[in-house]
């Protein structure tokens, strides 16, 4: 079965501290993984995807097929990073997204 697991509902860190939002997946085949972000009172938007291997707003995520993980990392958290983060994978030819339950990141001043 295709599944995305985000074990932390809430992650609270201080400004300047490193951040790691965990994401594990189960998928038969080659997965395509994404991180979406939803800032307060804004719509859900794409943060990054594993095939791009890019860094957005200082965030990176590496696909680890051995551990079936796609953790989101940032070395120094900023207050403006506070948001809800969803890990997702694309399931099947229709490109529908299968989301994890999300992690609320709270960056304290």
């Amino acid at each position, binding site marked *: 079965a295709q599944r995305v697991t985000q074990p932390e509902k809430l992650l609270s860190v201080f400004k300047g501290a490193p951040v790691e939002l965990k994401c594990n997946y189960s998928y038969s085949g080659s997965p395509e993984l994404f991180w979406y972000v939803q800032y307060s009172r804004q719509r859900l938007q794409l943060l990054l*995807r594993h095939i791009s291997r890019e860094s957005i707003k200082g965030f990176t995520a590496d696909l680890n097929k051995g551990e079936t993980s796609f953790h989101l990392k940032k070395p120094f958290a900023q207050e403006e990073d506070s948001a809800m983060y*969803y890990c*997702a994978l694309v399931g099947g030819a*229709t*490109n*529908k*997204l299968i989301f994890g339950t999300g992690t609320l990141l709270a960056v304290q001043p």
Partner: protein
Amino acid sequence: GAGVSQSPSNKVTEKGKDVELRCDPISGHTALYWYRQSLGQGLEFLIYFQGNSAPDKSGLPSDRFSAERTGGSVSTLTIQRTQQEDSAVYLCASSLAAGGPYEQFFGPGTRLTVL
């Protein structure tokens, strides 16, 4: 250009009534998706349209839920005989096409409250 728009932004209804939720995708986007965001369930896929046809309806939770798309553009999600468990934020997304690296762009959502 304009992004995905949804209406109404908020809908409060009584149990047993029917509701219609509307989505206007980005112009030229052939793929359209409906998702539901509810407490405890997270974000769930409901239905996918390619043009006017819906090859994947696997996420619709019951036969009270239906959706249509006309002219390859606007889509309407209809919930009949609403129940309290239908209360959620309903999100619409569109992309240039299904498959490939095409990004899904999300609308602001419709918050449905069933009393």
